[in-house]
């Protein structure tokens, strides 16, 4: 008899947990997600950094302090196994005035306590050698070489694909409505798609983890959203080589200036606390974006004109009561494990969180986990035409002509890339076809023109492959359809 595990939430935490738990013979793992695709919650919009682990005070936030550096080390291995796009370019925490060095010293000391290797304070001369484009006001910095960047949603997708390949079952567009508890033990979860039996329920529900916990009768914490806004610039705008931070403040690590993995200059986030009922508020604001612009200018004075902005977006951090990650088996409900309040550095910590959960299952629930004889740690990244040298591309096209047909002209994404993306969407159980699902897998629509040329073509491909009319294709799930019917629908008064 296998032990049934239900993981609630297919973000970076839930997906990492699913992958790690898929190693065990005696577990049957179910990954439950209310969105049409994985990684669309907190994991979708953030700074995409693999942090160094110097920032979290081990006295105040022991979980964060322990798991961040562990996660960083694990990501170095995971990105290779799962072929996740990444760059290890290091971070500079920049001092603009003498007193900043006191804070940098504190961070250095904290980093050493947390076990962060290779950190040091650099002087002005070395700083400009590491980052020539930095503001001339800079007088020194803390240099953290182990910092890197990944694509957060591609990472979630890679983890879930690997988990599914290793036997994990996904339940997308499945919203948890209740947790069934009998005699102090979890029995399963009630959802809009029926009851899912479970001996262990892992609450990795991001912004909604407090609501899920309350369904199991646990309410000692609350999650409130903290909004951060960002600008992305066109890829011909020069950006820094390193991840640039200002010297931090108590509330936030500050507004970062970086070149994200696709080569776009990115600035953000600010930090704005919202009330708990604002968990769906991913709107950008004029004020927030202004704050980001002004903050970024302090480190990177040569910001381009606004016409070079290709996207602005907002993310929400799930801020828990107390500020530390809440990762534990709850004693009053046997089998209920909270993985809540996974705010920054959650993306970095995710692999370590997953191993922590496996340990909790063994140590606190007393379940001996039996490793599978055959577990596949590898997952191949989707074909990206734009990454192939011409000779290689030509070979691909000879085998399959769709790889020779470019759909997204800004990023050179081929029809073959997109068809592969659709195949993989189906593989992990994506039921509602949406342009965003293709976007996050292929980078189509994320270039200079933001999809105005290729979105209609992607809609056609999705419509064909999913066998639905093109106007029923969505941007990001039900309620975000691309159209209202065929072009004569209103005149015929039979609007779809």
């Amino acid at each position, binding site marked *: 008899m296998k032990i049934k595990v239900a993981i609630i939430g297919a973000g970076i935490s839930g997906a990492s947990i699913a992958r790690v738990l898929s190693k065990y013979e005696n577990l049957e793992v179910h990954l439950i997600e209310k969105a049409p695709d994985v990684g669309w919650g907190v994991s979708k919009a953030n700074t995409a950094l693999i942090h160094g682990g110097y920032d979290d005070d081990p006295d105040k936030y022991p979980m964060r302090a322990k798991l961040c550096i562990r996660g960083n080390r694990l990501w170095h291995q995971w990105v290779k196994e799962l072929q996740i796009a990444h760059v290890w370019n290091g971070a500079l925490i920049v001092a603009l005035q003498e007193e900043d060095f006191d804070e940098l010293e504190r961070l250095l000391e904290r980093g050493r306590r947390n076990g962060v290797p290779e950190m040091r304070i650099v002087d002005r001369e070395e700083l400009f050698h590491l980052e020539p484009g930095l503001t001339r006001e800079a007088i020194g910095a803390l240099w953290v070489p182990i910092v890197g960047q990944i694509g957060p949603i591609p990472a979630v997708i890679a983890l879930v694909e690997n988990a599914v390949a290793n036997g994990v079952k996904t339940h997308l567009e499945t919203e948890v409505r209740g947790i069934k508890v009998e005699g102090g033990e979890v029995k399963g979860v009630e959802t809009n798609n029926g009851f899912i039996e479970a001996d262990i329920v892992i609450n990795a529900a991001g912004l909604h983890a407090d609501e899920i916990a309350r369904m199991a009768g646990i309410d000692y914490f609350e999650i409130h959203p903290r909004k951060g806004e960002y600008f992305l610039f066109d890829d011909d705008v020069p950006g820094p080589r390193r991840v640039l931070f200002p010297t931090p403040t108590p509330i936030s690590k500050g507004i970062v200036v970086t070149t994200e993995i696709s080569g776009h200059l990115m600035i953000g986030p600010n930090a704005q606390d919202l009330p708990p009922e604002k968990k769906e508020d991913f709107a950008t604001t004029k004020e927030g974006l202004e704050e980001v612009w002004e903050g970024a200018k302090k480190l990177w004075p040569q910001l381009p004109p606004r016409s070079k902005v290709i996207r602005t977006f907002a993310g929400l951090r799930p801020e828990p009561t107390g500020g530390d990650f809440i990762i534990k088996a709850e004693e009053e409900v046997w089998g209920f494990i909270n993985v809540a309040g996974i705010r920054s550095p959650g993306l970095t910590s995710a692999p370590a969180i997953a191993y922590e959960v496996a340990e909790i299952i063994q140590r606190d629930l007393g379940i001996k986990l039996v490793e599978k004889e055959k577990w596949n740690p590898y997952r191949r990244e989707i074909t990206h035409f734009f990454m192939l040298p011409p000779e290689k591309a030509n070979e691909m096209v000879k085998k399959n002509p769709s790889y020779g047909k470019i759909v997204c002209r800004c990023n050179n994404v081929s029809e073959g890339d997109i068809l592969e993306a659709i195949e993989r969407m189906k593989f992990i159980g994506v039921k509602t076809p949406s342009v965003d699902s293709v976007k996050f897998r292929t980078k189509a629509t994320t270039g200079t023109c933001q999809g105005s040329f290729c979105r209609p073509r992607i809609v056609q491909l999705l419509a064909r492959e999913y066998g639905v009319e093109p106007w029923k294709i969505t941007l990001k799930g039900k309620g975000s359809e691309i159209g209202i019917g065929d072009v004569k629908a*209103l005149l015929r008064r039979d609007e779809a």
Partner: protein
Amino acid sequence: MEPFPEIPMLGYDVVVIGGGPAGMAAAARAKELGLSVLLLDENDYLGGILPQCIHSGFGIHYFKEELTGPEFAARLAKRLVELGVEYRTAARVLEIRNYSDLEKVVIFTSPSGVYQVWAKAVIYAAGARERHAFEIGIVGDRVSGIYTAGEAQTLMDIYGVLPGKEVVIVGSGDVGLIMARRFALEGAKVKAVIELMPYPGGLARNVMILKDFNIPLYLSHKVVEVRGKGRVQRVKVVKVDENINEVPGSELWIEADTLVISAGLVPAVKKLKKIGVEIDPATGGPVVNDRLETTVPGIFVAGNSLVINDLVDYVAEQGELAAEGTKEFIDNGGIESRKWIKVEKGSNVRLVVPHYLSGERDVYLYLRVARPMEDVELRIPEIGKRLKLPVVKPAEMIRLKLKAEEIQKANKKLTVEVVKA
């Protein structure tokens, strides 16, 4: 030298990049002049944006009759076929390499494979892209229902999809006005056209659309925010003052499920920038001489990649001109001139192309003013040229013919200015 030994190699005198009106006219003309030509276009069909422009008003100058977009494209395509011009559709150029003046390589991909084409010259006619919502600073929810005008047009007139039923349009240029009419014709309610400037941005004949279909025009206004869940539900509009600053307290919300952005076009010239072509910040397109040759010898440009045009007729004309330049370039091993006269922008001139004139041939100057004016004179003081114009507006491109002997009168430069008569 062969850059890619494993990739099939093709050879032509000239490669034309882009199969819209500029590229088709260029390819046809180059073939007529006896050059071997390959035309490449990324779409499945020739014509560029024309096949989705199903309204009429095209071709009055070029074909001397009024046509729809698809008809205009079909005529050029027929000419290509009759001349036996080789063309490939679904062919996307990945890179242009410039080895020397008469050695260019164009690498393209297509469903039949990746190819390298060696050519003596390249005519770049890849059109433009539209400015999008993020570029013009619209904030708010990330929802479905926001389209550029071209995207909405593609959905409707290529794929037969109706984007929405209550529409707000940003921008009263030709494209925005034409889309307003297009939506109205399909039974959608166009709630408003929002224009940043104190005057409408389109040709007079298109501004009439607002009257014809009873569509409100908000001048000196801008859309600043979009709200909705899943799909656009309402948009926030504010008034702007003469310095384009938002007027506090002037906000109004308009209920709509669709926001169409028609906030101008930008020449699509990234591939030219990569090979060092100099760009004019005023046009967004390359700096060119009177043969429409860029600052990289043997790389020519025409159509909306050169400068955003109002009329397809001028676009096709530029294609022909670039082809004639290419012929001269190949025959003489370069475009030669005893002197180059620089065209300078004077009072109230926002942009003018070409940038350099030889004085050895007649040219058309294409220019736009910065602000609307009435009763003006277009002057070129260095050569004593004067032309009275009743009205000038930024929306209406001025095309001015200069004869070679007129141009020769100038020495190093000539200045184009538009001043009160």
